[in-house]
């Protein structure tokens, strides 16, 4: 069986009035997986998710999700979709159990099944005894877990998560990302997750969609964004100029960049040569590493090269 695209949009456009164009002729096709949707605030991420859910009507264009037309087959489609909005959406005077069970029933699960799934799902997201308490007293992290649980309780084939780590501390952020990653990989639920933080996407997703000002910038596997480059970075405490000169004499392609010397890896592996040259010149070596592009670097070319935590060779 040929695999059906998870999502296809055809010239999707959304305008608010005359002035604001949130989505501009967006056409993409995505295969199932864990997909990161990246863009600055206002790039059109939430608008796209809301159109896919039928919460917004596009100005023009169309879209299919799981093979259903989002405009005309909304109720059928949404049986199989879970949505975690960016904003608060919990009635704080209910308990998490009552609320999630209610939401499961609204998704068509029989009462008994809804109750059982609620208990399982809340455990899965890491809510235990607290689930019998009113959500009024919940921390942001607990609320985010309930929001994830209500998107997952009916066992969707696809989850749309809008900035799922919003407002979380670093620890909560890691836990949430881990949960999303596991849900996507271990249970085979496709995930489309928006974020304005590239690091998060890199951590969790296998496919990346970049939109800016409502337009598609790039859609590709995360690995192609972060492929190793054919360049070796050699950082020394002092004497980068000397080292560059020496290596150039040895016939290597070399470029100097501050305290770093960038060495092309075109032919051989020049590690021994570099080591010997540094020893001969008596320089202090800081690191040698093969450069890997980080997503941060790709989208913020002006930023300093600081995110490449690849182990030194």
């Amino acid at each position, binding site marked *: 069986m040929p695999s059906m695209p998870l999502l296809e949009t055809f010239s999707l456009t959304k305008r608010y009035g005359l002035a604001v164009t949130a989505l501009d002729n967006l056409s993409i096709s995505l295969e199932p997986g864990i997909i990161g949707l990246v863009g600055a605030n206002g790039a059109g991420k939430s608008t796209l998710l809301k159109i896919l*859910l*039928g*919460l917004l009507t596009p100005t023009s264009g169309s879209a299919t999700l799981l093979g259903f037309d989002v405009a005309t087959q*909304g*109720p*059928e489609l*949404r*049986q199989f*979709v879970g*949505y975690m*909005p960016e*904003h*608060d*959406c*919990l*009635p*704080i*005077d*209910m308990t998490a159990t*009552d609320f999630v069970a*209610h*939401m499961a*029933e*609204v*998704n*068509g*699960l*029989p009462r008994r*099944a809804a109750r059982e*799934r609620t*208990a*399982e*799902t*809340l*455990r*899965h*997201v*890491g809510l*235990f*005894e607290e689930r019998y308490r*009113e959500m009024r007293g919940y921390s942001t992290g607990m609320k985010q877990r309930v929001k994830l649980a*209500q998107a*997952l309780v*009916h*066992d969707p084939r696809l989850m749309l998560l809008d900035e799922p780590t919003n407002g979380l501390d670093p620890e909560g952020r890691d836990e949430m990302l881990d*949960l999303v990653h*596991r*849900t996507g990989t*271990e*249970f085979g639920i496709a995930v489309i997750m928006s974020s304005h933080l590239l690091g998060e996407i890199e951590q969790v997703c296998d496919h990346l969609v970049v939109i800016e000002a409502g337009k598609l910038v790039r859609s590709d596997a995360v690995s192609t964004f972060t492929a190793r480059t054919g360049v070796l970075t050699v950082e020394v405490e002092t004497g980068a100029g000397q080292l560059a000169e020496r290596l150039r004499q040895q016939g290597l392609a070399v470029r100097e960049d501050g305290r770093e010397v960038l060495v092309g890896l075109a032919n051989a592996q020049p590690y021994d040569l570099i080591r010997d040259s540094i020893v001969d010149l008596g320089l202090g070596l800081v690191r040698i590493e093969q450069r890997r592009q980080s997503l941060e670097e790709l989208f913020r070319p002006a930023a300093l090269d600081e995110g490449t935590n690849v182990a030194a060779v």
Partner: protein
Amino acid sequence: MSQPSEQATGSIYDLGYRRYEGVRLGRRHAMAAIYLQGLKGAFGIGRRTSSKIIPIVLAIIVMVPAAIQLGLAALAPRDVAVIKPENYFGFVDIILALFCAAVAPELVGRDQRTRTLSLYFSRSLLRSDYAVAKFAALVTALLIVMLVPQVLLFGGSALASSDSWAYLQDNWRQVAPIVGSAVGIAVFMGSISLVIAAQTPRRAYATGGVLAFFVILRAVGGILTGTLSGDYRRYSVLMDPFIILRGLTTWIFRSAPEGVIADVHISGWFYLLAAVVVAGVSLALLYRRYQKVET
């Protein structure tokens, strides 16, 4: 129930999740869930005590006339019907309006205030399904509030009467108009209250809006009826929602009109028409509100 041993082990997150292979019941089940949730919420069931007080107190006040009648019947068993089923609404109409003003914002404003609406609308139902379920919940809540005292009144009168069987034989024809008028009143008050309350997430505005509708139109109706003359005066009573419902009730029971209804003496069909138009316009506006509301 999570067991202590689960907490003790490190990998607690993985224990629960399984795929769901069972049935998915779709839109009607979703509507039923929202309807039941709304009906319970109308009386504060499943919420903290403070949410129960107002609706329950108002529901009890609606029963007071029935209690009075039953008390009188117990003291003086000579069939003194001070409070008759056809008059019951006239005693409690303001209380029912207060009930609507308290409960309608709870039913429709809360989901907007907490922004839960986006979770409903991203599930397997239409926006109109949501509105229909909420409307049905409010109508049912109003029917409960109105019919419980009528049942008490009817049953109590039968028991208090010297010959209960004869009472039932004489009065069973009252059942249809009791239920019919209650349905008419519930649909009328429910639809107008819901559409007003659905306009805003703010509870205070919603409650004030519902009360203002009933109070202002009642005052306007009274002023018009007091100042106009001739046919204008006769039909001006249709400005007052309470008069519309009293006229409708009188007409459904085919009982002798009293007060201003006897005074202006217009056909019962006009009350029915006015009630249908108000309810119809309200429901159309409610539909439109939910088609447009941003989530």
